[in-house]
């Protein structure tokens, strides 16, 4: 058995979490036997191979693993960007494995924020407008200004991406992701393209959002040091979860160094 389900410790924030009638916490995502197979010529690649996992509100999860271990595949399936070949995945009561294109679009629009390694800002829009893209379509968004203030970019609101540093661009991406007050924030190597100092500021922003909004946050990284900021660290290898480590306490990002 390569997977393990470990009850997480109480989140370090006091943000509200749902519990069932018995007082046990309800997972936000329930993952069972999740398998993803990519055909590759005459063979196939099992990117995920029977993953079982529960993810709870407000948690900060770090996914660690070598290239090709299945981290990104898992993150993409969680975010409704990809569909599994086998297994089940539910988000609250929504069965994401059988959701159609429209349901997945609505799920992403209402519940998920994404952050990518290469920011993916719209270069023709200013910071404020990039965030406004989301606030225009979300159900209960904060204002662009609020979102940008959360990542401490209130003084750069009317700058275009080309007028900002990589770290600033990534913080705009975070503001854009959280402006809709998502329940889930999925970050795929958010510091991969940044130097240490800038990387820390970006992680601080993510940590701040997680703590203030109580957003379930999943961060993919190659950098083991970053794992210390998490509630739980999930190690993946060859599409299997090989270990789930629970941190006794989360280390503040500002104390991290690599």
């Amino acid at each position, binding site marked *: 058995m390569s997977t393990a389900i470990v009850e997480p410790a109480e989140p370090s924030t006091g943000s509200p979490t749902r519990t069932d009638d018995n007082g046990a916490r309800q997972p936000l995502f329930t993952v069972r036997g999740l398998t993803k197979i990519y055909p590759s010529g005459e063979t196939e690649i099992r990117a995920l191979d029977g993953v079982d996992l529960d993810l709870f509100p407000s948690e900060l999860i770090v996914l660690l693993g070598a290239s090709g271990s299945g981290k990104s595949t898992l993150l993409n399936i969680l975010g409704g960007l990809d569909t599994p070949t086998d297994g089940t995945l539910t988000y609250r009561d929504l069965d994401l494995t059988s959701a159609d294109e429209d349901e997945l679009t609505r799920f992403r629009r209402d519940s998920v924020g*994404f952050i990518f390694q290469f920011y993916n800002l719209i270069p023709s829009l200013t910071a404020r407008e990039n965030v406004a893209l989301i606030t225009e*379509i979300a159900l209960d968004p904060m204002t662009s200004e609020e979102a940008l203030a959360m990542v401490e970019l209130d003084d750069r609101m009317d700058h275009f991406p080309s007028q900002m540093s990589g770290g600033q661009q990534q913080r705009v991406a975070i503001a854009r992701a959280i402006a809709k007050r998502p329940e889930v924030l999925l970050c795929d190597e958010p510091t991969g393209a940044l130097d240490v100092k800038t990387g820390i500021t970006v992680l601080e922003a993510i940590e701040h959002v997680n703590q203030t909004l109580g957003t379930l946050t999943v961060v993919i990284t190659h950098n083991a040091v970053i794992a210390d900021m998490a509630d739980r660290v999930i190690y993946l290898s060859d599409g299997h979860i090989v270990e789930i480590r629970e941190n006794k306490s989360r280390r503040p990002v500002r104390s991290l160094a690599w």
Partner: protein
Amino acid sequence: MVGGVAVGGAASHYDVPLRMTACFFPRRIVIAPLDLKLLRDLGKMKGQVFAVSLVMACGLAMMIMSRSLILSLESTRDAYYREHRFADVFCSLKRAPNALRPRLARISGVAAVETRVTGKVTLDLPGLAEPADGTILSLPEDRPQQLHLLFLRRGRLPALGSHNEVVVGEAFADAHGFRPGNEIDAIIYGARQRLKIVGIALSPEYVFEARAGEALPDNKRFGVFWMNERELATALELDGAFNNVIVDVAPSEDIAPVMADLDRVLAPYGGLVAYGRRDHASAVQLDDELMILRGLSVAFPAVFLSIAAFMSSAVLSRLVRLQREQIAQLKAFGYSSWQVGGHYLKFAVVIVALATVIGGCVGLFLGKNVVVLYHQFYKFPSLVLHPDWRMFGVAFVVSAGAAFLGVIGAVRQAVKLPPAEAMRPEPPADYQPSVLERLGLTHLVSTSFRMALRNLERKPWQAFFTAFGLALATGIPIVPGSFRDAIDYLLTFQWDVAQRQNVTVTLLEPGSASAMSDLGHLPGVMSAEPFRSVPARLRFGHHSRRLAITGLPRDARLNRLLDEHARPVELPSDGLLLSAKLAEILGCKPGDTLRLEVQEGRRPVREAVVQGLITDYTGVAAYMEIEALRRLMREGGTVSGAHLSVDTAHWKSFLAEVKEAPRIASLGIKEAVRASFLKSTGDMIGTITAIYFTFAIIVSFGVVYNSARIALSERSRDLATLRVMGFSHREVAAVLIGELALLTLLALPAGLWIGTQLATFIVTAASTETIRMPLILTTKSYASAVIVVLTSATLSFAVVSRRLHQLDLLGVLKARE
């Protein structure tokens, strides 16, 4: 080695076994890796490659079609004129004895001379209520024919000494289905004869088989006949004499002195002034047609090829930008900038080669079909399409040049980037607030519209060229629309507004007032207006034209003269009214004085002032008030014919009487001419219009589709981001389409303007002495152009929106830009 197909087995090459080759050669054909990349990249962008090639192919097809038609008509004409000995100088006269022939032959510069007898013939044909008419020419019996040799399509020439045997011109014979052996009733010089058709022939002087000066053939009612000289001379009371001379001038000689000598020799015999090919009705028709074709062979291809150049530039520069990293890698491996540059230029070569093949095939196909239509008008022994192969080369070079110009900038930029820098992700594109926002109008526009505006401002040239391509695509369909409307207008103007008579009668010889009275008393004639027609040469400065000055009553109500607004113009009591085109040819304007060299009677030379210009669309004419013309000729109430308004209730009895009237040379029936025009020219214009319209649709679809694909490719990362953030397909498509919709809207008014200019240019280029088209631009033409572009735009948006579904969200987001 980079590029090309090599035979060998270098380890660095991908080996591509070709089964056929392997049978014969032990080694295998290998394609250099860069060429494999070329092939595969082309495969991935086949939609766009095809779109660009197709637009280019439209231009090339037009170019090859029209150039091949020009080549075919010119080479066929030249060979026909040469082999069948078309004369250089022509002259009619009253009567000269055959003994004068040797003297004519002795004129310096004359290589060959032919004296002939010609006359008018009126025909009574079964199945044709009205009389037909024709020209009958003599065939020499006592000597070999030297000039205007007939091409016998069927049958034979009249036997020597035969009686009543004639050869008939092919156009007329075909119109009636005549074959050798058929007989027809004819009136020659007032005497009824039964003619036996023994042959069907063509002559270089009747390539355009129509009454002299008529812009449109009416082969049902006009024909050409050839008869043995002696018999015809007897019929025309010209025994031992001739009334027509044709001369072949030696190649090295100038024709002007020959004409002058000929005039001098023939003057005592009632000679009309000699003229050259430039004034020969059939030759001029053909030259004018070639002139129109030459204009079209440049204008349209130029438009299509420039659009194609913009398109290929857009496609290829996008490709180069996308492959920035690959270019860096190639350079890092040691490929030179030239090799890399050459690789991208090969894309252009493939597009152009594809376009040349498609355009060539389509052009030849269209040419083969259009040449058949030409055969309706121009009678040659054989008229087949001679593909202008040289043009294929020119077409390839021209379009390759256009494509190269388009791509060279992008390639240069890509190869001059140091590899290390090129391999780093490009920094985010630089943007700034758009004009609208700088004006403080931000609140007026949505976020996606703001994106569109800023994109357009950031790449103004790309936006300009896209809009320009769209504008050209909008302009093109206006041209065939204006053709169609011009023909409609011309028919109405010419035959309803200007000519209100339904019959025009021309007399064999000018008649007196009593002749006019006879015409007015024909059955059913409700009103009759005389006309006087006097052949003359009009001279202004060193320009001159030979035509018939027409005298009309001042208050003419049937055959009216109109100005450009179709308002009647009253004839002045003295002086001339000229076709605007004639004034242009002569280089004169109202107020100028022309020299009139009358070529009839005592051949007086007079001066007349141009009092005004009139608008007409076929042929060129000079008019005078009929009394003024008679004064000029010093004659009484002479008439050449009359315009009649005939009550159709008495049509049959009118025609029956006309058929029996020996003094009537020809009868022009308006409705018959209109029907004949619609059948022949209508077909031609219809075909050409359909070709242009199809090409216009291809271009507008090609341009919009191509722009949408480029926008999709350039913006795929943005669009994928929006999709990931939860935008629906529809919302993302709206962002993509917004920019193009904006460009399309900007392009439409510009396109309507361009279309107007294009139509004006083509109408001007197609304006000749024989036929001119009015410039008619209706709301309908504009509306149909807009509809064509909007429909193509909608279709291409639909096609591209479907591709949005296939957008690889993960792939796009993971990849570095």
